[in-house]
């Protein structure tokens, strides 16, 4: 039943760290020498050595609720590759090596192949988007991600008319991820979207949090963020993007198909078979009253932007 997924990246294909560092030295030298206009090099996203992301624009559509603290976001989350406890990712993710990093692009697209993280980020200007995050376990946070629209990235690969869906695969490496030794989910972790969902302006690629490079436990160095879907849809530490004409497998759906569907849109009217999705615990408030649950909003409050993706679709059946 369990299928082994070939990530398909040969060690020889990965840019050696020395070459990658040399390139950075070369680029900064070129900037210093005035060969490359510095304004351009700042506009483009790079991975700064000190972790501080610069030239981050504020996105006007950000959530107006009070954002959770960096500490809260980075210390309480699910990332099963580092353990199933909420504190496990923060404790164990230091072993994740995010540089060098490359992403394999495959399937129904004109531009496929292996891209270094630098190649992926290079043309994109960074923006900060404060999104609500609703976990399927009925807790939620408000998170200031830094990144760029997923649509802008997808367009660069020129998906063909065969590309009806896009699948994201997370790194699957026992030496860096203690949790993948246990068969708790189908590894590598895989998630997917329809191409229309991926092209929706809300779909986001995050590389940072609170103006800094993503902490490892939050899916460094590159992840997607889909604020109208339950959190597990937003694949972390992505190593492969695959365009396909058939609905791709998703790890949680494979684990419990009656509980986790392909769409997994936040929907207060469609309960999880075991618990209610009508309300959620918004974490991080102050005072006793903040402990009480709040109503969950349809599409996590992003219906205006995404509801049209699902016209005519029975959301109770397509959970």
């Amino acid at each position, binding site marked *: 039943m369990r299928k082994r997924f070939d990530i398909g990246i040969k060690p020889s294909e990965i840019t050696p760290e020395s070459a990658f560092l040399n390139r950075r030295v070369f680029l900064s030298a070129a900037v210093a020498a005035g060969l490359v206009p510095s304004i351009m090099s700042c506009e483009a996203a790079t991975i700064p050595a000190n972790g501080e992301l610069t030239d981050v624009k504020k996105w006007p559509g950000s959530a107006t609720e009070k954002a959770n603290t960096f500490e*809260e976001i980075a*210390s*309480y989350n699910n990332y*099963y590759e580092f353990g*199933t406890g*909420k*504190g496990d990712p923060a404790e164990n993710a230091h072993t994740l090596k995010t540089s060098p990093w490359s992403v394999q692009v495959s399937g129904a697209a004109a531009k496929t192949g292996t891209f270094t993280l630098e190649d992926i980020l290079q043309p994109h200007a960074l923006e900060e988007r404060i999104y609500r995050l609703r976990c399927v*376990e009925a*807790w939620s946070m408000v998170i200031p991600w830094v990144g760029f629209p997923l649509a802008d990235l997808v367009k660069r690969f020129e998906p063909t008319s065969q590309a009806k869906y896009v699948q994201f695969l997370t790194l699957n490496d026992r030496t860096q991820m203690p949790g993948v030794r*246990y068969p*708790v*989910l189908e590894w590598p972790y895989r998630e997917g979207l329809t191409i229309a969902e991926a092209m929706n302006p809300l779909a986001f690629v995050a590389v940072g949090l609170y103006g800094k490079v993503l902490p490892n436990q939050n899916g460094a160095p590159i992840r997607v963020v889909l604020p109208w879907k339950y959190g597990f849809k937003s694949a972390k530490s992505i190593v492969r993007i695959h365009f396909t004409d058939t609905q791709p497998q998703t790890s*949680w759906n494979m*684990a*419990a198909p009656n*509980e986790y569907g392909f769409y997994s849109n936040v929907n207060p009217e469609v309960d999880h078979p*075991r*618990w*209610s999705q*009508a*309300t959620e*615990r918004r*974490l*991080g408030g102050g005072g*006793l*009253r903040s*402990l*009480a*649950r709040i109503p969950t909003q349809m599409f996590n409050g992003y219906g205006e932007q995404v509801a049209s993706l699902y016209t005519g679709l029975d959301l109770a059946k397509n959970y």
Partner: protein
Amino acid sequence: MTQRSVVIIKTALWAACLAPFALLVMQAFGYAGGLGVNPVEQILNVCGKTGLNLLMLTLCITPIRRSTGINKLVVFRRLLGLFAFFYLSTHFLTYALLDLGLIFTPGTAWSTLLVDITERPYITVGFTALVLLIPLAVTSTRGMQRRLGRNWAKLHRLVYVIAVLGIVHYYWQVKSDLDFAEPLLYAFLLTVLLGVRLQHYLVHAKPAVPAPYPRVEPPKAKEKTTH
């Protein structure tokens, strides 16, 4: 066991049983690292698990008493059982009052509570277990024990049902096939504890009516049952 050692052990048990609650109170006021990012979950987990642990401990008393012959051990059982009731009540009250918000918005929270209890199987079994614990807590006094006589022991056998329901409640809210290790460990422990009792019963039971001789007649192959 001298009266003095009973007092010492009881004092120690009181302290040990209160410790998780005391820690929660300290954390609620920001000490000892605080309650973490999800305080409600933390309180629910600590109270639920401590309650279940204490319930398991009460079930350990009889097998240990029988195998060691220290009959006096039974004097510690009520203390453990009442603390189990305390933690499991706190577990429920945290969910009802804080999580659902019964103290803030009684109207909506009350209807959610009713829906949860009637429609969410894991809450139904958990709530049933707690309700069944109430008569046991109420009849735990020496006076009630005397008054109920032999029925007291019969009534308190409910604890077996309660323990099973408690573990099912735990098992049913685990996210997927993955985190089953802990509830399964409880299930295993409970199986052992109940198995030991069954074995004791089979070995020592001397029924008032003569036991029927082992049935030797072979089962009638084609007999039909009409009911």
